[in-house]
């Protein structure tokens, strides 16, 4: 199983490269995961999305889609793509310490 190292801690990753254990997540881990995804600084807008993702996951067991992020987080789709280039839902879920969103297959 793949792992990532942060400070002295080694954290397990799943097949998609997301945290295998959600409880390993912290804001420092988020910052490290963000760097790996090419996001050097997490702004308040980034955190708003990350926290929204974590709230939805805690309540519903899956991360929200981009469409729902746009509808409920108050941040429009274009901005979401600027904050989390390529795939906001996938990328924000990874940085938020959540598994890759299911809503696909």
């Amino acid at each position, binding site marked *: 199983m793949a792992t990532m190292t942060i400070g002295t801690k080694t954290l397990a990753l799943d097949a998609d490269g997301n945290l295998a254990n959600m409880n390993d997540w912290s804001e420092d881990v988020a910052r490290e995961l963000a760097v790996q995804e090419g996001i050097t600084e997490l702004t308040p807008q980034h955190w708003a999305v990350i926290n929204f993702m974590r709230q939805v996951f805690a309540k519903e067991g899956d991360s929200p*889609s*981009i*469409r729902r992020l746009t509808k409920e987080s108050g941040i429009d*789709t*274009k901005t979401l793509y600027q904050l989390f280039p390529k*795939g906001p839902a996938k990328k924000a879920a990874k940085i938020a310490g959540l598994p890759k969103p299911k809503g*696909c*297959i």
Partner: protein
Amino acid sequence: MRNMLILGGGTAGTIMANKLSAALDAQEWQITVVDATERHYYQPGFLFVPFGIYRMRELVKPRRQYLPSGVKVIISGIDHIDPAKKSVTLANHAVLKYDYLIIATGADIHPEQTEGLMDEEWGRSKFDFYTPNGADRLAQFLKTWQGGKLVLNVAEMPIKCPVAPLEFLFLADSYFTKRGMRDKVELQLVTPLSGAFTKPTSSRVLGEFLERKGISVVPDFGLARVDSQEKKLVSWDENEVKYDVLVSIPTNMGDACIERSGIGNELNFVPTDKSTLLAEGMQDVFVLGDATNLPSSKAGSVAHFQSEVLFQNILEHIDGRPPMAHFDGHANCFIESGFDKGLLIDFNYTTEPLPGEFPLPGIGPFTLLGESRINHYGKLMFRWVYWNLLLRGMELPIESEMSMAGKRV
């Protein structure tokens, strides 16, 4: 008299009407099915229409013919569901009361959800194959097309039949090769996914298939708008893909009555318990097939597997027992790979599609995640199975719960 009301007479609704009609006492129960149209289409066949393999008129039957005689059929649109009053209001304002409600209203494409997708070029240089008209128009167009760049774009996930985009491209490769013009056609998949498919093993195997057939992939493409004048797709992060012909799989959404009832998510899919298929937050309401928000494929095979679970659970529920049957997300899909061959994948919520043999380990006859001629014939044979066994709620030799037998991990 108690009322069992089924909204939608497609694959899921028809199977349930047949199963329940055989099990419930006709003296005690009135089963009613509501659907907007008289015609039942074999949707898995739409894929073949653009390539002249099937004609649309071969894929349609009268809806009532597949519903049992004791079932009341109402052809009408649905205005809204009122779970508090346990009633459904139809488009003509008639109100139907229910004791139990099964929502099987399906999913449809919504090209109007994407800026610039549905304009005067829709049906000329931009097509879909998820509707009877769309598939017919594309068949007409391809007959005389001289070649160029054909882009297959998936606007947004989830979509009905998530393997259909790949099958379309495999069949296109086969079609243009047979017509001696493959060298004049560029085929490209533009997808919001990170690869050919969603799960790691099948994404790799299917990705290799695309590569071998000379079909390129543009992954992670979140479609923002379509520019019909310049014939290009533009992503949210301002990347562009040019096309000569666009075959679009537009945003898929649940029925508008779900939105009017205020019981759906952002795509009008109904939040559903992934195991029992009870609607979340509603009394005596079940959801089946494409109408659910479940992380399982939106496909006929899934509706079929769900129907066996739901049938048991409804009978338990009527008897006042907690629902015991559990849906595991089982899906089973034949994938056309062109040149009269096909693949088969079999998976559930937690087990991704794996290579092997199906249903008998070491024997098959079908190969899992590998190409064979018999898989293709399995797919063609399925049309007969659909009309004659599946819709009628007959037992098929495949369990609703996924089996690991024959799969290689």
